[in-house]
């Protein structure tokens, strides 16, 4: 019997009516750099999170120590906490619909064999690239991770997935007399071969050059065209919470009660695609073991569906959309988007600019809090 299955059984043996175990192990290569590599570290991490339900009393306990004794101790603690916890009257059950979707492109085997020297070389070439633009690399980070997740509960045997993620950000500074500016670029991908760090470095330097002599403008009402990745970031910030059933059921979402009503223009179709090939949150099953899927959230401006995990779906008497996500093995699953995609329309950026007599092209933003306070870095188009 595996560690996860033993943990599920142990929690039940101790008197819980339901149990769930979520085991995660991770290896991360982490490389920080400015003009040269400042830090290279190897992190081997992981742990197990146990959830117990005793009728409607729920508790969670996690530990980073995953030997048999520590897991037994964790099982005892989680049951002990559940026994005294007050009831959640809305509790029904853990996920009873384990399964895998057709998701692909979330694991790159080549990452398991990466040599440290190869990583160092890739970073060095990127740093050289920044200097070609007479810019200075001021900060950068490359991370390469392999994460193995095993989940089981009292209704299902264990499911396992292995994911890889490569992530990079480069910041470059340029100075010209009294002018100075910092540009940045970033990329997240599941595949090592798609991590073109030199290209990211070039773009960071080009962005720094682009903003070098930017001038402030007075406040005004003006048409804006927002770069796709910038708009994606804004959308994610303002919609990630409100489109979840969790926010809706708690009365926190401005989209409560608006299903099947028009909330955006008809060019606006928003999809949560948990099975997008190579998406950075693409997985065959979510963090409760439920299969992932593609969900139309807003279709041609009409709000079609909220996102669900098991808990919220039972409450609304619908099926889960496979959107349970944990920030780590020590956290409860919460409803969150997987890959949130705004469907493309029929205008090119060039056409949009051509049609705008006087407006702003938003190239970057700093700070996109829930209130959408944006300091906009932009190019004036006249």
């Amino acid at each position, binding site marked *: 019997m595996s560690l996860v299955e033993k943990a599920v059984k142990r929690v039940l043996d101790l008197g819980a009516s339901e149990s769930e175990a979520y085991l995660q192990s991770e290896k991360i290569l982490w490389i920080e750099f400015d003009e040269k*590599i400042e830090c290279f570290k190897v992190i081997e991490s992981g742990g197990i999170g146990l959830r117990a339900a005793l009728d409607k009393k*729920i508790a969670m306990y996690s530990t980073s120590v995953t030997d048999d004794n520590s897991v037994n101790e964790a099982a005892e603690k989680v049951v002990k906490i559940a026994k005294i916890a007050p009831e959640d009257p809305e509790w029904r059950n853990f996920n009873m619909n384990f399964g895998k979707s057709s998701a692909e492109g979330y694991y790159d085997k080549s990452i398991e064999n990466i040599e440290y020297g190869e990583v160092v070389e890739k970073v060095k070439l990127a740093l050289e690239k920044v200097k070609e633009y007479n810019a200075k690399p001021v900060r950068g980070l490359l991370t390469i991770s392999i994460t193995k997740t095993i989940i089981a509960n009292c209704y299902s045997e264990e499911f396992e997935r292995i994911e890889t993620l490569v992530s990079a950000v480069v910041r470059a500074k340029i100075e010209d007399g009294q002018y100075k500016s910092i540009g940045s670029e970033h990329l997240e991908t599941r595949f090592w071969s798609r991590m073109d760090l030199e290209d990211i470095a070039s773009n960071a330097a080009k962005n720094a050059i682009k903003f070098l002599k930017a001038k402030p403008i007075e406040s005004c009402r003006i048409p804006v065209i927002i770069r796709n990745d910038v708009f994606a970031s804004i959308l994610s910030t303002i919609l990630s919470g409100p489109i979840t059933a969790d926010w809706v059921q708690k009365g926190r979402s401005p989209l409560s009660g608006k299903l099947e009503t028009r909330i955006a223009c008809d060019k606006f179709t928003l999809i949560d695609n948990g099975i997008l090939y190579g998406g950075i949150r693409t997985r065959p099953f979510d963090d409760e073991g439920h299969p992932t899927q593609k969900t139309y959230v807003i279709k041609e401006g009409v709000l079609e569906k909220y996102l669900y995990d098991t808990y919220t779906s039972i409450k609304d008497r619908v099926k889960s959309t496979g959107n349970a996500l944990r920030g780590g093995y020590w956290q409860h699953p919460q409803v969150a988007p997987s890959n949130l995609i705004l469907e493309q329309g029929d205008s090119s950026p060039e056409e949009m600019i051509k049609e705008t007599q006087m407006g702003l092209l938003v190239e970057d933003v700093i700070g996109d809090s829930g209130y959408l306070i944006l300091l906009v870095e932009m190019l004036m188009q006249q």
Partner: protein
Amino acid sequence: MASIKGEFLELESDLHSILDKAESYGVSYADIRYQEYYYESILVENKVLKNYSSRKFSGVGIRVIIEGAMGYASTCNIAPENLLKTLDNAINVAKALGKREKKTLDFEVNRAEVRSKFKVDPINVSPEEKTAIALDANKAAFIGDKIKNALTRLGFSKDNRLFMSTNGAKVRVETIMSGLWHESVAKSIMAMERVGYSESKCSGFEFISSNDWNNFSLELSKLAIEASEAGTSSAGTYPVVVDPEVIGLLLHEAFGHASEGDLVSTRESVLFGKVGEKVASDTVTIVDDNVENGYFYPYDDEGTEKKKVVVVEDGILKGYLHDTYSASKLDSKPTGNGRAQDFENIPIVRQTNYFMLPKDYSFEELIEDIDYGIYVGGKGATGGQVDVGMGTFTFSVGPSKVIRNGKLAEMVRGVVISGLILDTLKTVDAVGKDLSIRTNVFGGCGKMGQTVRVGFGGPHVRVQKMIVGGR
């Protein structure tokens, strides 16, 4: 500071062996950090217990320097054979970097064992007792139909850190924290308004059991209702009086980060090359220090004793915050600001308790000469963003009040303050005599993927010109 008796004796012996092994591999320096961290979080939402989670997190991080290159590796598995494998990982990444110019790193060699003050270890208090406090506080928030949602969270942490190095340093610090966070959401015809706030302390469970949390959540509900019925401020540049929470946030984010030695050494900071220059008005003195009400921080994660750093004195920039590495780069001394989120991370330059020193104005004196301005409130602030290179900041603050003819007048919601920090600090023309420093068990400050607990605050401060935006 109470001292603690040596525990982890068996572990210490294993860690010593690893350091000996590292020396036998030819490292010029190695350190090893063991951490054992407990965190407990109890969340009540709308009178129902939603989450009771408890976490134990422990492991070891090893740093080595070979031929001037630094390698680091960490593991949660502290079996002796796995520690050796982790040492190999650290050495191999250092070797992959190749030979580097050797820097003289000024590591202090301290030997100490200290813990923050506490009476009752919160991890040992029964779950029933803790849950009851959170449930009661949550129920007390429902003071009428306008309260649509209420969240209450109790949080406790116990952080045990042991630092040892090939230089012979051995420093152990244990910090216990307790706190309660509450958020009320109120809806009126005008708007929906969330107001969240927390109180935390480096203290045991006695901090929770000796406070009236029902009144705490009730007052936040009142504030949320009042804010939801308030108008918005009109955008413009006004004199403002900033409360201690907001001045703390502003200094920490917009000035504190810019004074961190690593960002200065890479010239990312707006404060690069400005030591000795005027960066604020004469009345402004800013320090980073280990203080009673802030975060307990006697030694950093490189074993350096935390010193009081005067960053700005009477408006003049005096120096920066340093870890050993940034100190070496800028030819300075480490200031005890090398901090790591946990054993999986390398220490980087971080603030500890960063605040403006009080002067001599009462609150009434600060507002009495203002014909029209804003008293900027911190309760319910939702944060903001800064650019340390440009010195720009934007913060969404909590419900605030208009100052009219020297008196506090109506409330306004949705207030945003922004500007250039150096310009803003130069227009500080009066500093209050009060001083409030806070810390937070529910979160901290993020930088380069690491979150650490900090303390921040200050006195009430009057700024002659601040850009205030409304919704």
